[in-house]
């Protein structure tokens, strides 16, 4: 029983991390129709920027996280505005561009920081004990930030002009433009929000997991998994699916070991993609 609860708790904190990652990814797909292969790159970049701020500049960790968010958001904004925006309607071209950016980011980090993983530890140590159950404090913090980020993103999308403008552009670009909405102004902002979220995740999670130039690949795979499961482009779906993925992973590693859990999830995702691209929840999504 204790083992069961422990696994569930691990699953929930994994789910929180995955949700943070998946939100940005699904946002870009939902609004711009772009599959962002550089998502894992921004995650790594967030981690390294936060690490550098703490290790070289001596900034307190929370401030370092903010710097990481700002840096990744700024890079995302520039990339969208100057490169992606020119070809935003060509799905293969945008995919290749984000892939190219990912290779550049990861090689850049490799060149600057070397191939070894960094000594980057989460500053809040210790755990909450409740009888035989314990929850590391760092996981609680990540969970709290994740829930706050989901709430903030929801508010931006559904309660502000920017959000309305973005959703209008996603629904019908032509009509939205005829109404005076300017993709050149709004799309870079959406991209920056998404990459900022990836940077936030990196800054928060790499101290818990690990920080090395290879950590972007699995991040991308997990984002795919989560976002397809939740229905590409759907925010609520992605958030929910993230917790499903986290919990499945936690339980399968506790009870089965190995990668059976991941295999099952990927097969499920394959079938979903083919037979029900709207995901588990059946949200409407944009056409490819």
């Amino acid at each position: 029983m204790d083992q069961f609860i422990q696994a569930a708790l691990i699953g929930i904190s994994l789910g929180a991390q995955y949700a943070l990652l998946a939100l940005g990814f699904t946002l870009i797909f939902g609004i711009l129709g772009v599959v962002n292969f550089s998502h894992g790159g921004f995650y790594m970049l967030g981690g390294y920027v936060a690490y550098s701020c703490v290790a070289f500049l001596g900034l307190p960790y929370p401030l370092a996280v903010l710097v990481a968010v700002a840096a990744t958001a700024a890079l995302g904004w520039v990339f969208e505005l100057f490169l992606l925006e020119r070809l935003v309607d060509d799905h293969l071209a945008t995919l290749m561009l984000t892939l190219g950016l990912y290779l550049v980011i990861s090689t850049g980090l490799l060149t600057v920081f070397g191939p070894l993983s960094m000594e980057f530890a989460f500053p809040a140590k210790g755990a909450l004990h409740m009888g035989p159950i314990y929850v590391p404090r760092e996981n609680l913090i990540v969970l709290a930030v994740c829930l706050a980020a989901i709430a903030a993103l929801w508010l931006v999308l559904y309660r502000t002009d920017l959000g309305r403008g973005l959703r209008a552009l996603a629904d019908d670009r032509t009509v939205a433009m005829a109404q005076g909405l300017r993709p050149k102004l709004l799309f870079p902002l959406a991209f920056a929000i998404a990459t900022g979220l990836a940077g936030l995740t990196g800054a928060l999670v790499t101290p818990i997991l690990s920080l090395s130039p290879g950590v972007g690949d699995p991040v991308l795979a997990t984002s795919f998994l989560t976002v397809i499961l939740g229905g590409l482009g759907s925010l609520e779906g992605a958030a929910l699916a993230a917790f499903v993925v986290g919990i499945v992973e936690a339980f399968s590693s506790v009870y089965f070991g190995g990668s059976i859990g991941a295999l099952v999830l990927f097969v499920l995702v394959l079938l979903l993609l083919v037979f029900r691209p709207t995901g588990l929840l059946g949200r409407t999504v944009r056409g490819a």
Partner: protein
Amino acid sequence: MLLRIEDLWVRYGGIAALSGISIDVPEGETVLLVGANGAGKSSTINAIIGLVPARKGRILFQGTDLTQIPCERRARLGIGYSPEGRRVFPTMSVTDNVLSGAFGLGRKRQTEALEWLRSVFPLLIDRDKQPAGQLSGGQQQVVALARAMASFPKLLLLDEPFLGLAPVWIKQIGDAILHLRARGTTVLMTEQMARPALKLATSGYVLRGGEIRRGGPVDAIRDVALADEYL
């Protein structure tokens, strides 16, 4: 003259959709463009709002030539646009659809617009949270109309507002257009159905094959417009 179109040409590939039309829309009036399917009505509207380029000619809005201004900037000058087939934003709520038309005007103006439009179209209150894609055609036309009016435009472009609507809805939309006209809004609307549209307009033009067959006050074009309708 609020809008003056001079010798406008529009081409798709090699095919001319508009061959040098000239149209005047005086301030405060409702001007009708009638014509059969393919006559060039949408091409005219789209050239004004900037969705298709003008190959030749000028489109003067309050004296500025719109053809020199990119599409996304034209709405800002005070032009509202309700497209053919309505094209509401299907996943967005009715209220968000309307507010999207008032993008960037500030919260105060947006609230003002929403309250005014809700008083004109009570439907916007009843269905406020419903995704617009789930509404009926007539309801969607109301949303599209409200969306176009949300920025308090000087000129309202309506592309076939009656398309595919039941007679009750044609009546309702017609009343709404009359209401806007009474308020002083200038309207340029297109229709295939000449009969109900002629009741709303002050003047009009009959389009056929990308050229103007006749233009003038409603009474002067009525016979040609109705003859065209039965072609």
